[in-house]
């Protein structure tokens, strides 16, 4: 892998790849949007109202608000992850679409950048839909503040898109992705403060949680929903950027080893 490691080449040629994914998505946009949103929405509203009615304020806010802020980050993470795991894998391994593209004057860097930016676009869509619910139900503190959630969502999509592409690069089949969900995604959902505050966890677990990318995402999103300025903005932004960029560079090297040998 080391000999394949190098900085990504950035070129506007990724746009036709992005556009290809967009045009395919557009064909089935309505069911895709509904499918993407139904799940997080049901959890958020079901648990938010059902469980929320039994609870006092959580983290200094109504439980529904608490959960809505977590859901923005969590559903963004899922959107990016599913896109670069299952969909990218189909295009790379099953349909051999990447091979076809690379016979044109396109490099693997262009293809992967197209996939990554497409994952960001899908995340934005997912995050924006949850944000729309937050606006609709008036769960926010300050409307203008919630607009900052949009770049946060893009950043979270970038981070998890990059991480997922590493899995995509090493996966022999779709089944392999279950490891990633069981060992990485699901634990993060439970440890990073989506459903309950991290402060409820034992201290050593809290220490682990502080390192996880979803924690950083939620630490940015939740204050913005409530209407306050997040603490340690630089730390969280840099953490997400570092997770995303490092993963992306590693994913490129691993994919290069996989496809260009």
């Amino acid at each position, binding site marked *: 892998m080391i000999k394949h490691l190098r900085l990504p080449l950035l070129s506007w040629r990724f746009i*036709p790849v992005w556009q290809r994914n967009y045009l*395919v998505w557009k064909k089935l946009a309505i069911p895709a949007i509904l499918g993407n949103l139904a799940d997080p929405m049901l959890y958020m509203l079901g648990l938010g109202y059902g469980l929320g009615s039994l609870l006092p304020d959580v983290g200094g806010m109504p439980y529904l608000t608490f959960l809505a802020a977590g859901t923005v980050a969590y559903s963004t993470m899922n959107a990016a992850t599913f896109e670069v795991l299952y969909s990218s894998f189909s295009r790379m391994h099953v*349909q*051999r*679409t990447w091979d076809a*593209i690379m*016979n*044109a*004057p396109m490099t693997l860097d262009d293809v992967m950048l197209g996939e990554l930016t497409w994952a960001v676009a899908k995340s934005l869509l997912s995050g924006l839909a949850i944000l729309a619910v937050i606006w609709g139900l008036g769960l926010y503190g300050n409307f203008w503040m919630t607009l900052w959630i949009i770049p946060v969502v893009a950043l979270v999509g970038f981070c998890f898109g990059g991480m997922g592409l590493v899995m995509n690069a090493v996966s022999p089949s779709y089944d392999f992705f279950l490891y990633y969900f069981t060992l990485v995604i699901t634990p993060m959902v439970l440890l990073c403060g989506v459903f309950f505050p991290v402060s409820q966890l034992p201290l050593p677990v809290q220490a682990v949680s502080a390192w996880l990318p979803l924690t950083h995402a939620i630490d940015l999103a939740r204050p913005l929903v409530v209407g306050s300025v997040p603490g340690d903005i630089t730390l969280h932004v840099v953490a997400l950027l570092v997770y995303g960029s490092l993963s992306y560079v590693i994913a490129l090297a691993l994919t290069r080893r996989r496809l260009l040998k």
Partner: protein
Amino acid sequence: MLTVRGLTKRYGDTEVVRGLDLNVRRGECFGLLGPNGAGKTTTLRLLLGLIEPDAGSIELAGIAVPQHAREARMKIGVVPQMDNLDPDFSVRENLFAYGRYFGMKKAAIAARVPELLEFAGLSSKADAQIAQLSGGMKRRLTLARALVHNPDILFLDEPTTGLDPQARHLIWQGLRRLIADGKTIVLTTHFMEEAERLTDRLAILDHGRLVAEGAPRALIESHIEPAVVEIYGEGLAGWTRDHACQVCQRSESVGETLFCYTHNAERVIDALKPVPALRYLHRPSNLEDVFLKLTGRDLRD
């Protein structure tokens, strides 16, 4: 059009391509033949600049590969061995998507699509989904897709593998049209008949090395006797012992059959007459005989 010097590619300790020299002229149809694992597909990937050689140089239409692979690929159309049309798009959308990968404007692609559909015989299928196409249609569409940017040179990796004879002949017709239009074609194939019919010159590769190069007829004439008599049946062993070395210039025993290569088939057939239990097939020698002579009869899996 294409010049390759000393091309070498290693995977670990195995050299897959070993010091290959090739020269393909403009407007020529050039065949790359070889058993499985001879290095044909690796060579094509090297020519496209998808992988980097360990040694040697490639120049494609005057452009150095892999250093300037992007520019070179603007001039190349590729028909891959494995079907990789975009199953999420219709026939027409496949051509549009592919044109965009070459940086073509929408109007430029739109102007080109009707003639590509006509070329592929798919004008009536423009809006069909890929899953609705037969194997032959898919291959023709892949060929049309490779032409979307009007390349000077076409690489085809086993373009007719898995097709029925009708579909294969259609592909051949298409390729002949392209050759007549002055395109340069490099194709790999397992079908000797295909190579004999289409190529002006061909190279036979084995174990990553060039073992023969030339026009198909010239290769047959220079490497092998003009006629073959294939002999099989009861009493072959005795006949082989008593007669083979007198009447055959060269003979080869494969399983239950004796391949007798000769300049004078009449003599062989006369010598077979006293043994009616022996059956035979007399035919002119062909490229397959050359291929088997040069690369052996062992299976390469």
